[in-house]
């Protein structure tokens, strides 16, 4: 049995994820959209914390909420007159998109619930890893080491930096 606090926390997180996600894609003002995204990301980070992945949660907040959303806000401010509403797609197209989305969600939901016997019973098991362990994994060359992906992603980031510079360069 979970503690009541945990359950309440879960529901708060779940509801905020759902509500803010929906708001993100339905609001007419793009800056608000970015703000709701921020909230969604915070909720996600909370979820990670709740699941005992504090490092991940921290990264989520730092990179996503702190980095990406700020980037979005900058981009929005650079490209948008504040307060101007976004244009809407044609309603037929929105209806079509909605139908397709709901269809996809329904399909996935059907799959999920057809495994409900299994998925609905299984509960999380506690297993704490401290930062040290994570760091060692990240930089080890063992069987379960992540040095190669780590290096790959560094190169990717480097490429991104270079690409960003090239793209942003004034012609």
């Amino acid at each position, binding site marked *: 049995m979970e503690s009541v606090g945990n359950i309440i926390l879960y529901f708060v997180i779940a509801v905020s*994820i759902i509500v803010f996600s*929906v708001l993100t*894609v339905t609001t007419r003002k793009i800056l608000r959209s*970015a703000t709701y995204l921020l909230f969604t990301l915070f909720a996600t980070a909370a979820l990670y914390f709740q699941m*005992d992945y504090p490092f991940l949660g921290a990264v989520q907040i730092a990179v996503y909420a702190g980095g*990406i959303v700020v980037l979005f806000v900058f981009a929005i401010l650079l490209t948008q007159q504040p307060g101007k509403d976004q244009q809407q797609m044609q309603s037929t197209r929105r209806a079509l998109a909605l139908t397709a989305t709901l269809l996809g969600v329904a399909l996935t939901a059907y799959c999920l619930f057809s495994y409900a016997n299994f998925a609905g019973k299984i509960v*999380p098991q506690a*297993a704490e890893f401290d930062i040290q362990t994570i760091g060692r994994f990240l930089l080890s060359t063992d069987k379960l080491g992540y040095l190669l992906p780590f290096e790959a992603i560094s190169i990717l980031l480097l490429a*991104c930096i270079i690409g960003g510079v090239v793209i942003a360069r004034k012609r």
Partner: protein
Amino acid sequence: MNLTLLMYLVPSLIMFGCGVYGFLTRKNMIAIMISLELMLNAVDINFVVFNRFLFPGQLEGMFFTLFAIALAAAETALALAIIINVFRIAKKVDINEINKLKF
């Protein structure tokens, strides 16, 4: 009452659906990127959840999410750079108005 796997997957699913909907309906490229982030995030949650519920002794899911976040960051940064650049040239960010690669 237990917090089961299903309970974590459902918000993620809804989040993903929102992402899809947003991606399909938004005109503003930045908004589309935002929807994309939602989808990515939903997937991240799934990784972590599965890791926690099914393989608690390992860290694959967590690391995957970690890298995904890094990738998402890189991708967003680059995409936003491109968007801003396009905006500089074309003075617009609506995706259906920018349908030519050359100007």
